[in-house]
């Protein structure tokens, strides 16, 4: 499942809802991305996420389907927020559930690596010196490339 929303999310509720009744699941890996208060030595007061409605949902669904196929996951969830956020706020949640932990851990890393380079979101950070669009990092491309085959 994927969700793109402005509202916050409750990690434990999402895990419960996702795994309810699926007692063959032996491991659940979760990742939560938060808004940092510093970026490249610059103090951040606000972060606003722009995205491409329609394509965002399509890409997230594709990324999730790829993870489910590669690791044969029993359940998965991606939630990504957009709109105005503040330091400490949750931005993104990835949950991967499988019979064994290896698949859950690996698939979760994969989801985040692909999401970072393929999901059409753009971050804008606001500080005392004004607003700035975040630039893409080469290290994110390298992280995504390790899953190519």
């Amino acid at each position: 499942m994927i969700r793109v929303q402005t509202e916050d999310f409750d990690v434990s509720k999402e895990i419960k809802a996702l795994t309810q009744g699926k007692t063959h699941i032996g491991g659940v890996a979760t990742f939560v991305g938060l808004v940092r208060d510093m970026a490249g030595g610059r103090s951040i007061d606000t972060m606003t996420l722009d995205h491409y409605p329609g394509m965002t949902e399509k890409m997230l669904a594709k990324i999730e389907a790829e993870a489910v196929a590669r690791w044969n996951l029993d359940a998965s969830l991606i939630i990504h927020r957009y709109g105005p956020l503040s330091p400490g706020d949750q931005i993104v949640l990835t949950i991967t559930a499988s019979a064994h932990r290896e698949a859950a851990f690996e698939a979760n890393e994969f989801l985040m690596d692909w999401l970072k380079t393929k999901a059409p979101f753009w971050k804008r950070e606001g500080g005392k010196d004004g607003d700035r669009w975040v630039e893409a990092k080469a290290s994110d491309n390298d992280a995504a490339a390790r899953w190519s085959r």
Partner: protein
Amino acid sequence: MTILYFAWLKEKIGKDEEQVDPPAEITNIGELVEWLAQRGPGYADAFADREIVRAAIDQEFAETDAPIEGATEIAFFPPVTGG
């Protein structure tokens, strides 16, 4: 066709969406970028670094040489920074 702009392209061009009808000799993304960049200083600025601007045709990532014939929605944006 509908053209969409996101992030700083939207700010430089001053709009997030517009309808355009490029001439028949504009056949791919690269040519469309050249054509759009001529439309004004905001466009020229937004497309100044051709290497950095990414594109999508009908919500699928598209390379410079991707044909635009039959496309209904083409989007331009910087490299993504979500997650």
